[in-house]
């Protein structure tokens, strides 16, 4: 089978209003993001022939993509909703690239939004999210989403000596980047001490080790590499994509400290012909600080077990060798649930277009890796994108 390498490109990208948006429903945010992405790509809505969405928790719709198509009054020939938790974003990109390469569609809109902050009560949001646990053998014990991830953080600390300060440094890095992003939900600087002194949620995770609860949505438009050159902005080519699926429930994970990001990363690197050393910046899924440490290791940016030290070294800062989460990540920019990593992708597109304000624009980046994980470090998708087709 021929490779998807360089066959498709992102030609439109936009975010909806984000943060706390009580006056808009999840569906409305999804549609707003869609229309903004179309505008960015210079397209009319009837020029879309493929639509991929992800369902919302606050306003679930049984056949979500079909309902969004109806709302927009578009009539695609390819229309599907995808759900792999947080890794949904890049799974949809994988599907879209495949659909374009096989001729199922020519121009695909990927759009998703949710309003976890305003569309649900705090209690309801917590119960819905913790329901990712096994209904018979996990949920009755009362685990929360932070608790599931705390099991990973605790195991990593016990096995590799990773410290609370090292976990905290991830949150500090993200906040520093968010301070340079006017649309970020949280912009005030924080220190390692602030993170460690924040309220304990589920040991070893403090409040500031946990991502935000937000409203918002985001959309991108993908087409073939051939067509991509005719769009107003510099295309961002999809050079490699890979998935890894290890488990759904954390009690069934083969390994608590090594994830299926190893497989997703390997597959993406192989397709792209690139290695971790070629990556100019990375956006790593940061629902909780320990996930970033595990991803830094499993994606080959540092040796296994040294993610904590690498995070503290300064290399992941904007001026370091591998800037991460340049928009502020889900820890500080926004996190409306499944669409959370879409913002990492739109940010990546803007970085590669060289179109961001100077303070957080990386100097002439060429290749980026974006990675997301869904469930409890369960499903992983890695995506490598760049400014050159080859």
């Amino acid at each position, binding site marked *: 089978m021929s490779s998807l390498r360089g066959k498709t490109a992102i030609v439109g990208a936009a975010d909806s209003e984000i943060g706390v948006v009580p006056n808009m429903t999840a569906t409305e945010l999804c549609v707003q993001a869609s229309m903004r992405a179309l505008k960015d790509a210079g397209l009319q809505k009837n020029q879309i022939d493929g639509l991929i969405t992800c369902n919302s928790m606050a306003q679930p719709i049984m056949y979500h993509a079909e309902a969004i198509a109806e709302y927009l009054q578009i009539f695609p020939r390819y229309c599907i909703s995808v759900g792999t938790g947080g890794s949904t974003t890049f799974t949809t990109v994988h599907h879209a690239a495949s659909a374009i390469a096989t001729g199922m569609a020519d121009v695909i809109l990927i759009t998703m939004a949710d309003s976890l902050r305003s569309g649900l009560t705090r209690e309801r949001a917590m119960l819905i999210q*913790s329901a990712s646990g096994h209904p018979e053998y996990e949920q009755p*014990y009362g*685990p929360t989403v932070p*608790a599931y991830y705390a099991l990973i953080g605790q195991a990593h600390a016990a096995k590799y000596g990773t410290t609370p300060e090292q976990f905290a440094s991830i949150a500090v890095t993200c906040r520093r980047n968010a301070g340079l992003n006017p649309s970020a939900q949280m912009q005030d600087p924080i220190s390692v001490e602030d993170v460690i002194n924040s*309220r304990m*949620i589920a*040991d070893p*995770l403090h409040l500031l080790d946990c991502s935000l609860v937000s409203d918002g949505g985001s959309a991108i438009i993908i087409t073939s590499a051939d067509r991509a050159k005719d769009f107003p902005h510099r295309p961002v080519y999809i050079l490699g994509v890979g998935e890894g699926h290890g488990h759904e429930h954390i009690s069934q994970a083969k390994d608590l400290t090594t994830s299926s990001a190893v497989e997703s990363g390997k597959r993406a690197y192989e397709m792209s012909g690139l290695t971790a050393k070629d990556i100019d910046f990375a956006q790593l899924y940061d629902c909780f600080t320990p996930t970033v440490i595990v991803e830094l290791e499993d994606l080959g940016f540092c040796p296994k077990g040294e993610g904590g030290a690498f995070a503290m070294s300064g290399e992941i800062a904007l001026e370091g060798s591998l800037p991460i989460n340049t928009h502020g990540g889900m820890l500080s920019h926004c996190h409306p649930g499944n669409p959370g990593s879409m913002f990492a992708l739109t940010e990546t597109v803007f970085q590669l277009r060289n179109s961001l304000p100077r303070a957080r624009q990386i100097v002439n980046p060429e290749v980026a890796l974006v990675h997301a994980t869904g469930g409890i470090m369960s499903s992983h998708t890695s995506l490598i994108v760049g400014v050159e087709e080859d």
Partner: protein
Amino acid sequence: MDKIQPIVTALSQPYWDGCSKGLLRLQYCPECRRHQFYPRILCSSCAHSDLEWVDVTGKGTIASFTIVSRAVSKAYQSPYVIALVDLDEGPRMMSSIVDIADKPVKIGSKVSVAFEQWSEEITMPVFRIL
């Protein structure tokens, strides 16, 4: 507000019946001689479909844990422990560690099963540090 109740199925009934009697039971595959958790209609290793229910020791080791400070709902009294326990027979299960006042929870701590009434119908297996 009630604690979250497991949704018991015909397949898992022997597990919950065991818990009600103070016995931890696992599925056992006579083909590959392996215990399995959670219950399935097949052995997830060799796909053998005729599995047995066997009583196990209820002894295990803490693989990881967290002390939850922010409870999932008002039905749960924080702080409480969520743990992954590696049973001596092999399988790993999520559970809670109880009576931790004078025995600190640690990865690697040996534990033994205990049972707590969750509702009129349901008794949940939890663990105590040995």
